């Protein structure tokens, strides 16, 4: 097998592996609802219950913040 053919084969394997990684990642992301964990730049963990902060004063929503949705 010639050197050029080996090089082309090596490149093909690497490119296919990279494309496969990106496609698999995209499919995984589609399988779950979008959230913080879908952002490539953000270190925020997926949503979890947090303690109320001092800023959250006022009338609490009886359904809780996570239940709200605003169809427009």
């Amino acid at each position: 097998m010639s050197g050029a053919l080996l090089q082309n084969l090596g490149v093909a394997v690497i490119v296919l592996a990279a494309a496969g990684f990106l496609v698999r990642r995209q499919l995984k992301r589609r399988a779950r609802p979008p959230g913080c964990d879908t952002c490539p730049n953000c270190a925020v963990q997926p949503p979890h219950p947090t303690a109320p902060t001092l800023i959250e004063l006022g009338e609490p929503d009886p359904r809780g913040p996570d239940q709200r949705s605003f169809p427009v």
Partner: protein
Amino acid sequence: MFAWAQPIMDFIDAVVGRFGSIVHAVLPAGPVRSLIVDGIIAGVGTTLTFVPQIAVLFFFISLLEDTGYMARAAFIMDRLMGKVGLSGRAFIPLLSSFACAIPGIMATRTIDNRRDRITTIIIAPFMSCSARLPVYALLIGAFIPNVWVGFVTLPGIVLFSMYFLGIAAAIVVAALLKRTVLRGGRPLYVMELPPYRMPSWRSIVLTVRERSWLFVKNAGTVILAITVVLWFLASYPRGGADLKALETRHATAVAAGDQPGAKLLERRMAGLTLEQSFAGRVGRYLEPAIAPLGFDWRIGVGLVTSFAAREVMVSTLATVFNLGNAGQDMVPLRQSLREAIDPRTGRKAYSPLMAVSLMVFFVLACQCMSTVAVARRETNSWRWPIFMLVMMNVLAWLVSFAVYQGGRALGLGL
């Protein structure tokens, strides 16, 4: 931020360049060497150069959070936000958006009023997130001279202006929305201010470490994979009658011992291969739409890939420029951008005005598909995310056009 990060950036840049040159010298010529040096090392290595700036940015954000200043900032901003029809409650989501728009949009759940919440969701992506920072840093480092203006440097002023432009655009858009389609009264905002406290250095170090590591991890996985695919798209298909003719002339020049002529032909062959590649064709296809903004097809390729993640623009340009470098030693991307030649005119392809126009485009454009997906979920409708996507990208094009053409009309084109 610029001044502090610059020495470490230069060091990483030099290490990446040296490493690329060593690998270039060791590996035999061929596609594997091109993939490793022009693709992987140039793309991922150049992206890693911006880790120090990410660390400095998050150091200051953590410092503000830990001292308890954030709540005071929300209180101070309440009056200003009231002028555009929003309350101080929108401030924390907007501030979070400087790190990333996704947690910012999710933080709008604390806003009770539906119209206020939608307005905040739509303006959150205007805040300059950390993914835009490498693009600003690259363009400022390449084109803005490092001179002092009073007690600050010009690069610092330009960087601040980009952050300020995002805030100003958000204010204008919010004011327009609150006076038209999302009209409503100003909500009451009540809050209790926590006491000031000494920041926890451990917490700050952990945050900076976590954010920096995430950036490095991203560069080693997603950006690496995109870079490899992009290298392929920018290298193939090879061939064509023009290229074959150049290869024949190159072989003749080598046989005749004409080294300068052979080098020149190598550069032309590399440029032609890049132009005829899949990525080159996409860039050429886009060129008529982006040429009025001062961008050429190479920037067009970067704009397309930046829809995957904004910072991919940096690795894309690094790959494109190294492929066009005809297998010479690796040249830092900032230098390549400064020295790039427009083959049609023979003059420099890019100017400081183009750099400002491109940064303005990045400030205002909605390129992050994850942000659009989260806006869809949070508004429970496609209507507002699509409005956000179209409005932001049209605005980005118009403002970049005004900046570039206005600058040229004022004689700032070079």
